[in-house]
């Protein structure tokens, strides 16, 4: 891996909640254009890693550098601009209940003065078309299914034209067919918008479809990393547990 291609670097990150150590000395480098899947059992701290990267949680130790800058050295205004480059797809979609799909999508871009020249309606229609939900533009989140909410969540993320998208369990709670659609959508976004993706999941089918590289998390440390083919051929009992489905 060429160092100049690295756009996200996690170094020796530790995070505890009270006496419970969730993340123990985790390090990871992500290159531009890569799609990395962090695989692990539920409750092993996968989402905590993503929330540390986006700055919602501050690590107890270690550094997180995005585009060569330590996230936690930034001033609030710099952080706001910086977060624009990082999209985050929440597990539940996290759509604002009181707003229509259109308002949900416009809300983040309205907050960024540097994007005031954007044609909001045109952009909204473009990203909704990308996720196949243009028909839902004036619907309320309560009228959408789980899969549709995740698609709209992804569309909202794309409105800010991020360079990195962090996906928190994008297929959890969805039926296999919808999970496959979401996985294919992630690949489409990768091709269309050339984004770098970091995906947290325990859905091996999704990992197989989208990942260039898979990192397995166990007990708060990265246990093993490799391609799908390398890891699925592993003799390690813990790793085999993920791939025998």
């Amino acid at each position, binding site marked *: 891996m060429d160092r100049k291609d690295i756009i996200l670097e996690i170094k020796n990150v530790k995070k505890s909640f009270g006496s419970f150590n969730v993340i123990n000395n985790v390090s990871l480098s992500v290159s531009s254009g890569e799609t990395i899947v962090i695989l692990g059992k539920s409750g092993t701290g996968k989402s905590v890693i993503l929330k540390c990267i986006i700055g919602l949680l501050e690590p107890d130790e270690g550094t997180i550098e995005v585009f060569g800058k330590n996230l936690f050295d930034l001033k609030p205004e710099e952080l706001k601009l910086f977060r624009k480059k990082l999209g985050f797809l929440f597990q*539940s979609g996290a759509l604002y209940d009181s707003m229509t799909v259109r308002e949900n999508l416009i809300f983040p871009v309205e907050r960024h003065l540097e994007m005031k020249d954007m044609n909001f309606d045109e952009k909204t229609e473009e990203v909704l078309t990308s996720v196949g939900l243009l028909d839902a533009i004036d619907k309320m989140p309560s009228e959408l299914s789980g899969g549709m909410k995740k698609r709209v969540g992804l569309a909202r993320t794309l409105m800010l034209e991020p360079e990195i998208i962090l996906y928190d369990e994008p297929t959890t709670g969805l039926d296999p067919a919808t999970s496959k659609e979401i996985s294919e959508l992630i690949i489409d976004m990768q091709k269309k918008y050339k984004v770098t993706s970091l995906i947290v999941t325990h859905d091996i089918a999704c990992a197989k479809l989208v990942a260039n590289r898979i990192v397995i998390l166990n007990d708060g440390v990265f246990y093993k990393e490799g391609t799908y083919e390398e890891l699925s051929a592993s003799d390690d009992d813990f790793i085999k547990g993920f791939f025998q489905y």
Partner: protein
Amino acid sequence: MKTFKVKLPASMREGFLTISGIVIFGARYFKEVYKPPYELKELLKQLFEIGYKSLSLIAVTGFVIGITLTLQSIPSMQKFGAVSLVPSMIALAIILEIGPVISALIFAGKIGSSIGAELGSMKVSEQIDAMEISGTNPFNHLAVTRITATTLMLPVLVIFSNAIAIIGGFIAFSLVNDVSFKLYLQDSFSSIKFDDLIPSVIKTGVFGFAIGVIGCYEGFNASRGTESVGVAANTAVVISSLAVIIIDMINVQLMSILF
């Protein structure tokens, strides 16, 4: 030197932590309220949601208070041959004490719980986190607007409720006494000075502020899980109602010194 450690019961510790949390949250409002961007669109929406939508409930409450208070006072005043004093007594009681306190308690039940539940639900479903990473200050957008709206709207609602209560008082009074509305109003306001209205309006503003702060605090501090949404709504009502009564008690002492 000997030091003594006093271990407080868990419920008391939790109570102190909640009170200190609410005070810090309220202080943060004054820090953030002047900071741009000013969320005027959201503020107008909250003024409408909080003010207009509480109007009917507050009006009914005021009307019932006016009728009940008058009907209960007439027999007692008749014993002393002072029925003619009923309009001014009712007006004084409603404007200075009963109107603001009862309206604030009703407001705490409707708006305090609604803010606690709405923000609690947003916290649990990660909408507040989503707002933060999209470049919006959630405290500014959600808390400052709601607290400002409750602080501004409760005095307006109380003035409206008091007016309805006086009309209710007139209806009840006219059932047993032949009196015109004009004369009733003249009698009602005969012993009220403009200075009497100021403490009452200030008090309701403080009630509104406390209800807004407590509702937002409970919502923002809802723990993960759907159960916590109900807890946030319930706790917001309980603490707001208690706060209204305590603020009223302090206000009585303070205003007697100042006015």
